[in-house]
C-alpha cells in the first residue's frame, strides 16, 4: 500500500516538474499585497521625515524584504534547484566587497579634498 502511495507521489512530482512553475494564484496576490504594504512603509519613512540611523535601517530592511519576495516568489527562485540558486545569488554578494573598497576610497578622496582645498569643491 505504502509502495503505491510512494509511486503516486513520484508520478505527481514528475507531472509537476514537466508542467513548469505552477503555484496557487492566492500566493501571488498575497506577495503582491505585501509588496504594496512594504512600498507604502518605505514611502512613509520619507513622508514622516525619519532621520539618521533609524531611517537607513528601515530603508534597507524594507528594500531587502521587497527584493527577497520578488526573487523568491515572482521569479520562482524558491522552487529552483539549489545549484541555480547559488550560481545566481552568490556572485552579487561579491559586489559588497567592491562597495567596501569604494567606501574606503571615497573617504580618502573627501579627506584629501578637505585637507588641501578647505571646504570648497
Amino acid at each position, binding site marked *: 500500500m505504502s509502495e503505491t502511495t510512494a509511486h503516486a507521489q513520484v508520478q505527481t512530482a514528475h507531472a509537476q516538474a514537466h508542467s*513548469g*512553475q505552477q503555484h496557487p494564484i492566492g500566493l*501571488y496576490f498575497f506577495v503582491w499585497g505585501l*509588496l504594496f504594504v512594504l512600498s507604502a512603509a518605505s514611502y512613509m519613512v520619507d513622508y514622516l521625515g525619519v532621520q539618521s540611523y533609524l531611517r537607513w535601517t528601515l530603508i534597507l530592511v524594507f528594500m531587502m524584504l521587497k527584493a527577497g519576495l520578488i526573487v523568491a516568489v515572482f521569479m520562482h527562485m524558491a522552487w529552483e*534547484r539549489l545549484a541555480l540558486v547559488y*550560481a*545566481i545569488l552568490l556572485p552579487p554578494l561579491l*559586489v559588497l566587497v567592491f562597495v567596501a573598497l569604494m567606501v574606503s576610497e571615497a573617504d580618502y578622496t573627501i579627506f584629501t579634498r578637505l585637507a588641501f582645498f578647505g571646504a570648497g569643491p
Partner: protein
Amino acid sequence: MAQTIETHGGADLRPSGLRGVAADFSSDQRAFKTASWGKAMMWIFLLSDTFVFGCFLIAYMTARISTPVPWPNPSEVFALHIGGQDVPLILIAIMTFVLISSSGTMAMAVNFGYRRDRRTTAVLMLLTALLGACFVGMQAFEWTKLITEGVRPWENPWGAAQFGSTFFMITGFHGTHVTIGVIFLLIVARKVWRGDFDAERRGFFTSRKGRYEAVEIMGLYWHFVDLVWVFIFAFFYLW
C-alpha cells in the same frame, strides 16, 4: 548505479541540499537540471545586468561620499505641488506602485500561461506592458520637470554637481530597460494571442518551436526591472 540515478534519473530522484549542488555541478552534464537553457541563460544575463546596475549605484555612492558640497535633498527635489502644498516624493511613490502592479500582473500572466489559457495570458501581458509604458511616461515627465528646473549632468541649482549626472545615468538606464521590456512584452504577447505556443509554430528568428515557458522567461526579465527599481528607490530617492 547510484551515479546513474543521480545523472539520468527524474527530478524526484536527485539529491537535495548541498549534496545536490555538488551532484549537479559534478555530473559532467548540464549543471542546471530542472531549468531549461532559455531560463538559465536569462538568469545569467540578469546576473550580468546586476553587476552593471551595481557599478552605477557604487559610482553614485562614491560621488556622494566624496563631495564636500551638500547633496540635494531628493525628498524636496522630487516633490510635486498638489492642492496648494508640496507633497514629497509623490511621483516616485506612484511610479513604484505602478511598477509593482505590473510585476503582479506579469506573475499572473505566467500562471495563466502554464494553464494554457492563452487569451487571459495575452491580456495580462498587455496590461503589464501598459503599466510599463505608464512608468516610462511618468519618468519622461520627471526628466522634463528637472531639466526645466535647471538640472544638467554638470550642474544643478541645489548642491553637488554630481547629482545630475548620477540621476540621468541611473534612471536613464533603468528607463531604457523598462522600454525594452515593454517591446519584449508586446512581441511575446502577440505570440501568445496568436496561439504560437499551442500550435507549436516556429519562431521567425530561431525557427524553434516555442513553449509557454517563454512567458516565464519574459517574466524573469520584467521582475528584474522591478527589482532594480527597488534598489534605486531605496538608495537614490530615499537615502
